């Protein structure tokens, strides 16, 4: 997926250090920094609707990056990511409510707690892989969902748990406007951590386990250790994302973390591109915007007779769900490498234009 990069003429790499830089070229680095600054200006320019969308994108993107580390980089399949996401949400609310640790600290702590749970359910991964692992995580999804409904002391049972708003040095973040910056902070930090992870020995070991686990083992990579580690890291991300979700809504209920959300997470990374950090972000944006665009699309189509029929207006929720399924299927058939690959191709096209060979 990195494979082939578009570098300006005469820009050669002469050291290994240069070869493993986070940003390929200075231009890409500057563009990324500018992108973050431009995003930080969103609340001043656009209205609350877009700020809310961005907040949604940011917590889903963090959790999706965790899943991509597990699925895209390590090659382990997880169908229970939503359960870990939910666990993070409950854990953070619980830590904050029982011990009084400030929310900003309880979010990473919830991540650590979720990582521990992820390790527990990752234990079968020491022995099984591929399809069997997918089914084991499916079981984890249902077991955790059941746990949420049952463990009154932890989740508040069927009533749900209240989560306090984020508190930064005595200043309560109550509105979307300020929470936006909390999200942006976590998003940037978690994505930098994720990108950096892939440059370390551990990150490369993940990729080796994915590409050919027997060869990896022969080269001295401890398979069990790295598989478990990948599970823990992925759950950590899910926990942090979930905790942000919980504190944003202010209330966590057990019903929100179904298998459909797990599938949506998988959809995000498949649409974005397995094994691509940038792709994860793109896929999340796609997945969050898809229902919104459809909602608005139906609004635009209302000039036509058929778009106003009850079949369309009442069934919109189902049509959105169908669209998610359809998007996953179509991407797998026509663009299995995801949006990240498409983006590369678009870049290559303009870079090489008009001689694209």
């Amino acid at each position, binding site marked *: 997926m990195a494979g082939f990069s578009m570098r300006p003429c005469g820009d050669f790499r002469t050291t290994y250090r240069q070869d493993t830089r986070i940003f390929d070229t200075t231009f890409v680095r500057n563009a990324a920094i500018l992108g973050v600054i431009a995003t930080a200006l969103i609340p001043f320019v656009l209205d609350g609707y877009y700020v809310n969308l961005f907040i949604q994108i940011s917590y889903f993107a963090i959790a999706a990056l965790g899943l991509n580390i597990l699925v895209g980089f390590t*090659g382990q399949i997880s*169908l229970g990511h939503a359960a870990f996401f939910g666990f993070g949400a409950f854990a953070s609310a619980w830590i904050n409510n029982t011990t009084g640790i400030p929310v900003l600290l309880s979010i990473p702590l919830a991540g650590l707690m979720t990582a521990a749970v992820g390790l527990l359910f990752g234990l079968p991964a020491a022995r099984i892989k591929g399809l069997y692992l*997918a089914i084991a995580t499916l079981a984890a999804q249902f077991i955790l969902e059941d746990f949420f409904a*049952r463990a009154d002391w932890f989740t508040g049972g069927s009533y749900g748990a209240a989560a306090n708003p984020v508190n930064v040095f005595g200043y309560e973040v109550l509105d979307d406007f300020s929470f936006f910056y909390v999200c942006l902070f976590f998003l940037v930090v978690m994505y930098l951590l994720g990108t950096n992870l892939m440059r370390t020995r551990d990150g490369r070991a993940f990729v080796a386990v994915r590409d050919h686990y027997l060869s990896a083992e022969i080269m001295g990579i401890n398979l069990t250790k790295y598989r478990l580690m990948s599970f823990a890291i992925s759950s950590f991300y899910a926990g942090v994302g979930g905790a942000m979700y919980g504190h944003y809504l202010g209330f966590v209920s057990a019903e929100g973390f179904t298998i459909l959300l797990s599938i949506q997470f998988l959809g995000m990374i498949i649409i974005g591109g397995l094994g691509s950090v940038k792709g994860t972000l793109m896929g999340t944006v796609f997945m969050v915007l898809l229902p919104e665009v459809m909602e608005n699309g139906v609004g635009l189509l209302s000039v036509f007779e058929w778009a106003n029929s009850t079949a369309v207006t009442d*069934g919109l929720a189902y049509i959105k*769900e*169908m669209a998610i399924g359809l998007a996953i299927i179509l991407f797998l058939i026509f663009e299995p490498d995801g949006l990240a690959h498409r983006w590369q191709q678009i870049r290559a096209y303009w870079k090489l234009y008009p001689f694209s060979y």
Partner: protein
Amino acid sequence: MNFELLFQLLLNGLIVGTLYGVVAMCFVLIYKSTQIVNFAQGEFLLIGAWVCYAFLVEMQMPFWLGFLFTLLFMMAFGIVLQMVVLRPMIGEPIISVIMVTIGLSIFFQAATKWIFGATTATYPQVFSERSINLFGMQIETAYIMSFVISLVIMAAFYWFFKYSKLGLAMRATAFDQQVAQSLGISVKTVFAMSWAISALVSGVAGIVIGMVNGVSSALSVIGIKVFPAVILGGLDSIIGAIVGGVIIGLLENTAEFVDGQYLHWGNLFSIAPFYVLIIILCIKPYGLFGTKDIERI
């Protein structure tokens, strides 16, 4: 201890278990012949049940005709699905294959809800007697019918794979695709047929369950329940699927008994199979009858 209740529940477990076994068999059929894990198996049941419902109630057909049309529809559906969606997936990594069937699953689940509504619908009464008395137990006629149909389907499977030409071709393909192809078996046809048969039989199971419990999106849950059954029995063993299905059915009802009489936890019966699943995966991942993968470098 309430023996009568226990016995009644175990009987239910046996009947439901054979149905799980039938669905698990369809699942194994697809896995064995095409190496695809079908997460949309439950939706086959759902579609079969709803299509039959549409024929019977909305078009007012007699039962045998509607049933026959449903069978034809499911067969065509399976073939088209294999040709359009699953054929491009041959040779793709396992995550893609799994995700395609998951995508199909949520697509069809939403589509059936959209077309047929989210409420439970009941079939017109097929039998005149609602329940009959057997050895002092009241058993619903529909249950007996479902048990008989399950046994018939299993016998048909046995005959099909043992004696029919297509069945033998399918077994050969499952054994070794290249050898089968070199002997003149059309692997494409075999793939399409295994999806067709799987869809058809799942559709029948869907109709049967629909008659007992009514048709609603809850039917697709069976597609998830199948996983404990097939893992317990071994992913590539048809006998294992049946045994696994019956065991899971019995286990569910035993869990319900224990829960209702002693523990009072609530929905233990729906979650117990998944605990079993995790335990089996940890100690015996290839199940009771599955072949153990031996990997060479």
